[in-house]
């Protein structure tokens, strides 16, 4: 189970890395094109926003699995050791419900937007919602794993991410 979770997370990290690279290249090329050659990249705005949305929602499950999301833990930390896993599990269960609703909402939007084409890219507006559906679904899977574990993940943004892209 852990191996599968980690493998998919690594794939997501590679995707996030590529998306940021796309963002930089597209926007920088647009500026160079505009001032250097007097021509703009028509698709720069739409493609960069698309990459940004994908990056945001693919980061969401990574934030759960790597303990990156900001939280104030003063009260839970002050609780007796025996109560902490239960409080944590209640919170995780609530977020699981939230992720299921977000995933369902994304699927509804994907269906509604499938025939609406973007102005400068040859794809439909549903592509804005695919990362939200994928991100929330994968977040839900991670939340199930956290529910079983009964304790939060320690923040590990350095070691694991370097390992994942090297």
């Amino acid at each position, binding site marked *: 189970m852990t191996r599968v979770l980690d493998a998919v997370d690594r794939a997501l990290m590679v995707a996030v890395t590529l998306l940021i690279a796309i963002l930089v290249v597209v926007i920088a090329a647009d500026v160079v094109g505009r001032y250097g050659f007097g021509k703009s990249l028509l698709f720069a705005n739409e493609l960069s926003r698309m990459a940004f949305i994908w990056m*945001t929602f693919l980061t*969401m499950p990574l934030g759960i699995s790597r303990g990156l*999301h900001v939280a104030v833990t003063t009260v839970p930390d002050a609780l007796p050791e025996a109560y902490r896993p239960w409080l944590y599990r209640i919170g995780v269960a609530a977020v699981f419900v939230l992720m299921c609703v*977000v995933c369902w909402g994304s699927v509804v939007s994907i269906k509604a937007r499938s025939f609406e084409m973007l102005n400068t890219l040859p794809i439909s507006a549903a592509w804005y919602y695919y990362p939200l559906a994928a991100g929330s679904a994968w977040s839900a899977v991670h939340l199930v794993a956290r529910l079983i574990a009964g304790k939060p993940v320690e923040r590990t943004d350095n070691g694991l991410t370097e390992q994942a892209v090297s």
Partner: protein
Amino acid sequence: MSSVVAIVFFVTCILGLSIAFAFGLAGLVGLWMSGLPVEMLASKMMFAVNSFPLLAIPFFMLAGELMVRGGIVAVAIEFANTLIGRVRGSLGHVTILSGLGLASVSGTAVADAAALGGALMKPLGNSYGRPFGAALIAATGNLGPILPPSTAMIVYATIVGPELSLPALFIAGVLPAVLIAGLMIFYVYFAARWRGFPLLGNPFSFGEFARVGFRSLPVLMLPVIVIGGIMGGVFTATEGGAIAAVFSLLLGLFYTRQLKLSDIPVCLLHAGLATGVVTVIIAFASTVTFIFSIDHLPLLLRTTIESMTSDPTMFLILIFLMLVVIGMFMESTAAYVMLVPIFAPMALAYGIEPLHFALVFILTLIVGMLTPPVGVLLFVMVGISGLKISQIVKEVWPYILIQFGVTLGALFFPSIFLFLPKLAGY
């Protein structure tokens, strides 16, 4: 309904849930209570982050990462060291000036404090004591979102919309940042004399200054090109961010030659993850602000505050006091997303210039990143220095007073603090 949503948010936050998900749950409850389809949550989230100006955030995060790994921060520190020479508290002054340099390219307090902490915590701790060093670095990190470019300003301007110019806001941040840095240098100097800190560094030499200055020129040009380009209207903040990232990359690869090709994916990923943490909060919070607006909360609050005072300055003081308290307990991005849509239109109704209100609002919340009990910069420095939070808090108060003092200056003297944007034609 708004009160229930707010209660759900605060209770879930207090119980340790991530702020982003606390917003999500509060928004979900709000949608359910208002009888709207709960699947709306997804489209609200998507629209909240489907914004070109927000794209500047990962770029400035990336530029900061590349500056640290590419040894550009080290060049800035060496230049500051030569500039300061052998005076009382010189290492502290070097920290503040290097922080200003870093802040002029990066836009976040946490990243700047982490970068400065990695490079300067040890020498500061050895010379002036670890609590003094940790507090100084935390306070210097706060210059990141005050001096342009600023992630906080990008988020604020994106929420407010076209009625507020981001370049004007950037320019408005210059004076408070320089003033805070200057006052911090004064404080460090007198604290060093009073406490008898050792004299460090070499005496100032013009030859050495010219030599190091010439060598640092490409690094010093980085903020000039990026900030100058944004403020001069050559490119947008987002495009300026991309230029900053590319420029930092080229400097690290070909000038300092400390950046390896294998570092680039790591920098990209770190920037992506750091951005995602912020934008996921913005995405989830959008439903809460939507619920507040359909529940006419801004109108209700406006009526309440108008019944208390009709004086714009008094209104600003009330907002300042409220934000001081909120800043002590709440993460700043969450506070922007939740409160700006409510209070920015109210300030306009009081006849307060949007730029003035934005500056006071942003400065107050930025100082909140330094105030206990939930000062995120204090937590960063706890991680870097290994000290207890109480040890850092004892040393951080003078910096908090300086930064709040400058914020109050901006509140009471808008003509002085908005002089630069006016001069630039905004």
